[in-house]
């Protein structure tokens, strides 16, 4: 536990020191600004239903795609690629630590930083809902489930980023691989579904498979509507576990040479 805590602390210091994190914050808040603008246009003159209003700002806007494709890979690209490039991985791995502890520590730090990035967006929603702005009613349960879904999906994509970072000593390449991975995850259900239907017909299994593996749909159609389904939570947590496990194996590969 001490190793994980030490790693989280050190990584958070590195994030706060890194100019990249601040660039990400600026881009994120700019994108959030675009969403606020859209929301204001959308809500002007009409009274949105509370569900749409409560979830739109968090997960329904188009910038969410942009955020999920770009931000997690950029946040995690240095995790192991930089350590490999500079040689500090040797310093790290010759301390009395387990590979798994280091991997989990780095991932948790990235998750905490992602949560910190999103935190300032919460008061804006409250402000928008006030009478002197849009005067909408907020259902805080939906907001909470939307943020939870956002955090879970973000955590899974961060695990993907941590994994791709362990594959190479090139920071940029690690980010690009993770971005490609994320794009594939967004596009795969739409791409695979018609082909599966061609091959197997519109069966329950095909529909269930596509539905269960649509990482973004879980967020929008479930968490974004205030529904916390344990299977979706497990899907995201399982994804985290899978990619963290793969990262540990990837680090262990130095022992297989």
């Amino acid at each position, binding site marked *: 536990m001490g190793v994980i805590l030490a790693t989280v602390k050190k990584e958070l210091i590195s994030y706060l020191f890194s100019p990249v994190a601040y660039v990400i914050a600026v881009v994120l808040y700019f994108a959030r600004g675009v969403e606020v603008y859209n929301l204001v246009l959308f809500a002007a003159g009409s009274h949105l239903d509370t569900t749409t209003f409560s979830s739109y700002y968090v997960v329904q806007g188009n910038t969410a795609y942009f955020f999920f494709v770009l931000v997690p890979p950029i946040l995690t690209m240095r995790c192991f690629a930089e350590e490999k490039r500079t040689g500090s991985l040797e*310093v790290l*791995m010759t*301390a009395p630590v387990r590979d798994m502890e280091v991997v989990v520590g780095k991932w948790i730090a990235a998750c905490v930083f992602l949560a910190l990035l999103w935190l300032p967006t919460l008061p804006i929603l409250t402000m928008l809902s006030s009478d002197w702005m849009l005067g909408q009613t907020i259902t805080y349960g939906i907001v909470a489930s939307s943020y939870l879904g956002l955090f879970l999906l973000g955590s899974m994509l961060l695990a993907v980023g941590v994994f791709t970072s362990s594959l190479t000593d090139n920071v940029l390449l690690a980010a690009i691989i993770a971005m490609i991975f994320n794009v594939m995850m967004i596009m795969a259900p739409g791409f695979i579904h018609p082909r599966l239907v061609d091959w197997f017909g519109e069966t329950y299994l095909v529909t269930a498979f596509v539905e269960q593996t649509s990482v973004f749909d879980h967020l929008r159609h479930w968490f974004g509507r205030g529904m916390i389904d344990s299977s979706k939570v497990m899907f995201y947590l399982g994804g985290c576990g899978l990619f963290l496990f793969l990262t540990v194996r990837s680090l262990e590969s130095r022992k297989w040479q």
Partner: protein
Amino acid sequence: MITVQDLTKHFGQTRAVDGISFEIDTGEVVGFLGPNGAGKTTTIRVLTCFHPATSGRAEVAGFDVFKRPDDVRRNVGYLCENVPLYPDLRVEEFLHYRAMLKGVPRGQRKSAVGAVMERCGVLEVRRKLVGHVSRGYRQRVGLADALVASPSILILDEPTSGLDPNQRRRVKELVRELAIDHTILFSSHILAEVEDVSTRVIVIDEGKIQADGQPKDLLERSEGRRLTVSAALSPSEMAGCLRGITGTRDPVFDSEDAGFSTVSLAVDAGVDPRDEAFDRLTKASARIRELRLDLPSLEEFFTDLTCRESTDDSAPDRETEA
């Protein structure tokens, strides 16, 4: 403290370490010598549990490096070649992080970090970012890191590489101080340092141990020693007088000065021809001005053992791969 038996490490088809065996006892300071690509770093990485060996056995502080890597790491302080540290942490932050990582109890962490900063002379840069301190300080921060959990064994991989002479001297002094209460294995290809600091040297080349012992013993047993004699004889008389001394060969006349001739002879390993030379010269009633046995320098000894011009080009590849 460190036992290595038949250790072999392959990287694909390349055999980086080839069945080496050695033991290091408590309190010894052992210089691990070898040219680039000899297998030093690979051996050290096995001993620090960074990667396993292909075959063989290694124990550090009584723990098997393959079966008990955590226990080994707890007992070893390791200074990596090139000291890759985290440039975005302050020196003190970095050492606190490393102390936490190495399991130094919370209550002792502050004092442990303070003590190693003082011992390694980095107190004045404690607030600076690691990326902003000079190479010499970085090396000392690396040493402080190796020491922070009070390990009994220190493994230092090229601790002085890339340093200027002053910085090298300071690091050497520090290693000498540390030798009082640590077992130290340090690799280098700077021979003067090894000679200065270590009580024993292990020379490795092409993955095999070429020599192992105290520097003086190794030099005394080595080829390349020369007997120098200066006596009041003509060169021809001198040649006649010294011809056939047991274990000597290749006489070279250096000079003739005011009736004194100086000659030097190559001496075979393990032979001391001084007594016989003295007897012969006194029998010839020659006045002796000088009679000495020159040992080769460690550098000459090292060159003799490891000279392999034909494979020099491939050497860096082996180390890089390692």
